[in-house]
Structure formats: structure tokens, C-alpha cells
């Protein structure tokens, strides 16, 4: 679910860097405005490691490898911290595993960062009243949002030389293969929130 190097035109990769820089700037400004900006750094650091390793948890569903994305979990647990955490995690994945590319780092950060912030918004709006439902919707919805962004960017950057019909078919198969992942990630967010509520309610994110 990461765009590798050489798939999209250079102009789109540059635009992705611009968009992710704006997103990171906004997130850092919001973090600085928090009453205790340092307070969430330990949690953000640990979740960055979880996010980084999650892309190795692969479920073989043809035609592509389906791996955990965890954008929803990052968004719910970290809020605005999710954006820098995802950026760092994606950079390490690209450099160490070859998942995604360095030129497409900006695009990938947008593909995963925006859904994470959406999941955060869902949790803030409905987390207190319906915690289970909000957690599941945040986790599953983030996967669907990542899919939508990924497909839109791939289709927008299709080179002329490529057979668009075959690529659209392959993208359709990719979306179908990821639908079970949406359910799974919804359950993951729900389970983590329940566990936190029972074990350590102080760690529960609220707004």
C-alpha cells in the first residue's frame, strides 16, 4: 500500500512533498499549541516503532501483498502527533525495507497522514459517547480512506504507455483484497482502546 519509486510522474512526487510538508507544518504548529507538547513524545515514539514494524505483518492476498497500515490506530492514539510519527515510520520503511520510495515519501505521508487525522476527528467527535463504535469506525474508515487516496493518486499518475484497463482491473482487485483489512484494523483499534480502558484509563486519548 506504499507507492514505490518510479510509479508516478516527478511532478506528482514533488506535489506530494509540498502537501506533506504543509501537513507536517500544520501538525507541528498544533502540537506546539498543546498545553504539554513533550508529554506525548514517549507514546508517539513507541507507536512509531509499532507502525514501522506493522508493514512487515503481511497477509498474502493476490494480486498484492496486504499488510497492516495502522493509520487509524495512529490517529486515534496520537492525534496530531500521528503526522510526524507516520513521516518517520515511512522514511525508515523506505530506507530499510524498500517499502515505498524516497521520491514518493511525500505522497505516502499524505496517503496515510490524512486518514489518520480523520480517524482522530472521528474519535474526538464520538469517542466519549460511543467508544466502541467510534474506535471501530476510525480504524476501518482509515483503511478505506487510505485505499481511496492511493487509487486516486495511481489513476491520476498513469503514464500514457500503460494499458489503463488492465491497471484499473488490478486496482479493483487490490481494493477488494483490502476490504478484510478494513474490518481487521477496525477490530484492532477497538481492542486496543478496550484494553487501555481496562488496564490504564489515564492513557486513553481524549481530544
Amino acid at each position, binding site marked *: 500500500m506504499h507507492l514505490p519509486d518510479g510509479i508516478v510522474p516527478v511532478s506528482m512526487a514533488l506535489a506530494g512533498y509540498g502537501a506533506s510538508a504543509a501537513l507536517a507544518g500544520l501538525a507541528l504548529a498544533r502540537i506546539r499549541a498543546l498545553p504539554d507538547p513533550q508529554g506525548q513524545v514517549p*507514546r508517539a515514539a513507541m507507536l512509531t516503532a509499532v507502525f514501522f514494524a506493522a508493514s512487515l505483518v503481511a497477509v498474502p492476498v493476490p*494480486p498484492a*501483498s496486504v499488510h497492516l497500515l495502522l493509520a487509524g490506530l495512529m490517529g486515534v492514539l496520537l492525534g496530531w502527533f500521528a503526522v510526524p510519527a507516520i513521516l518517520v515510520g515511512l522514511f525508515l520503511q523506505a530506507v530499510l525495507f524498500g517499502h515505498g520510495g524516497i521520491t514518493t515519501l511525500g505522497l505516502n505521508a499524505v496517503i496515510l497522514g490524512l486518514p489518520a487525522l480523520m480517524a482522530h476527528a472521528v474519535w474526538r467527535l464520538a469517542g466519549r459517547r460511543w467508544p466502541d463504535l467510534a474506535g471501530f469506525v476510525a480504524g476501518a474508515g482509515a483503511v478505506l480512506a487510505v485505499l481511496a487516496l*492511493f487509487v486516486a493518486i495511481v489513476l491520476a499518475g498513469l503514464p500514457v504507455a500503460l494499458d489503463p484497463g488492465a*491497471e484499473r482491473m488490478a486496482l479493483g482487485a*487490490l481494493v477488494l483484497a483490502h476490504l478484510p483489512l478494513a474490518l481487521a484494523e477496525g477490530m484492532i483499534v477497538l481492542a486496543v482502546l478496550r484494553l487501555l480502558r481496562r488496564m490504564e484509563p489515564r492513557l486513553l486519548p481524549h481530544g
Partner: protein
Amino acid sequence: MTRGYRLAAFALCLAAPVPALSHAALVTAETATAIRLQAGYDTGDPMAHAQVRIYAPDDPARPWGQGVTDREGGFEFIPDPLPGRWSVQVRQAGHGAMAYVEVGAAGPVSLSTATRPDRVQQAVMVALVAWGALGTALFALRKRGRGDASS
């Protein structure tokens, strides 16, 4: 009469080979060095029926050739005798990779592709990143604790 027939038959025999030649199949055979690719995901699954674009060394913008991988992710082509770096892109559903094939002036072909890290290497990388994250977390906690103590 019979003489006339023989003459006609002779004339036909002379004429016949000319149109018949256009139907002759001519086969020339030569050996050529083909390049065989194997495309797969890092989970071990093959990239079946993925689209392949081949770029010659003299024109990296326009594809020199194209094709589709077979069910096992395999693909073969014979490059022109043009020395330099040939690039082959295999892509499917937004996933894909480039492979580079060095075609030398003398003919021999050396293949260069990225190797994927094995499980042990991946485990080491994950452990190192987790260690870094733990260090960052502890550092932030320590700074925080010190700040609390001084205030």
C-alpha cells in the same frame, strides 16, 4: 496435339515456380541472448499478469517495448545490440519496481536487481528501530521528570 500439350506443360513448368516462390517459408535461425525477469512481491507471491515496460539506453522516456508477465511473474525479451543500461519496469495496481540490465559492448549481460532482506535482517532492523523509539521515549520522560522536579 500431344506436342502442343507438351509445350504448354513445359511452359507451365517454367512459369509455375515463380508464383510458388511467394509461398515458400524461409526460416533463418541465430542465437541471441535473451533477458529473463522474475517479478514478485516481497511476500514471495509472483507478480502475475503485471505490465512490463522496457526502456532502451538511448531513450529513457519512451518505452522500447512492452508486455505482460506470465502467471509465475516471468518475462523474457531480447534487447537490441545496444550497449548500455536497459531499464525494465514491472508494475501492477500501483505497486512495482524497476530492474536494470547492463548490456555490454562485447555481448555478455550482467543483471543487477535489488535483493530483499531476509527474515533475520528484518528482525534486526525492527529491533534497532524499537530500541531507538524506546530511547526517545525514555529521554522525553527523563527530561519531563527533571522539569517537574525543578518546578
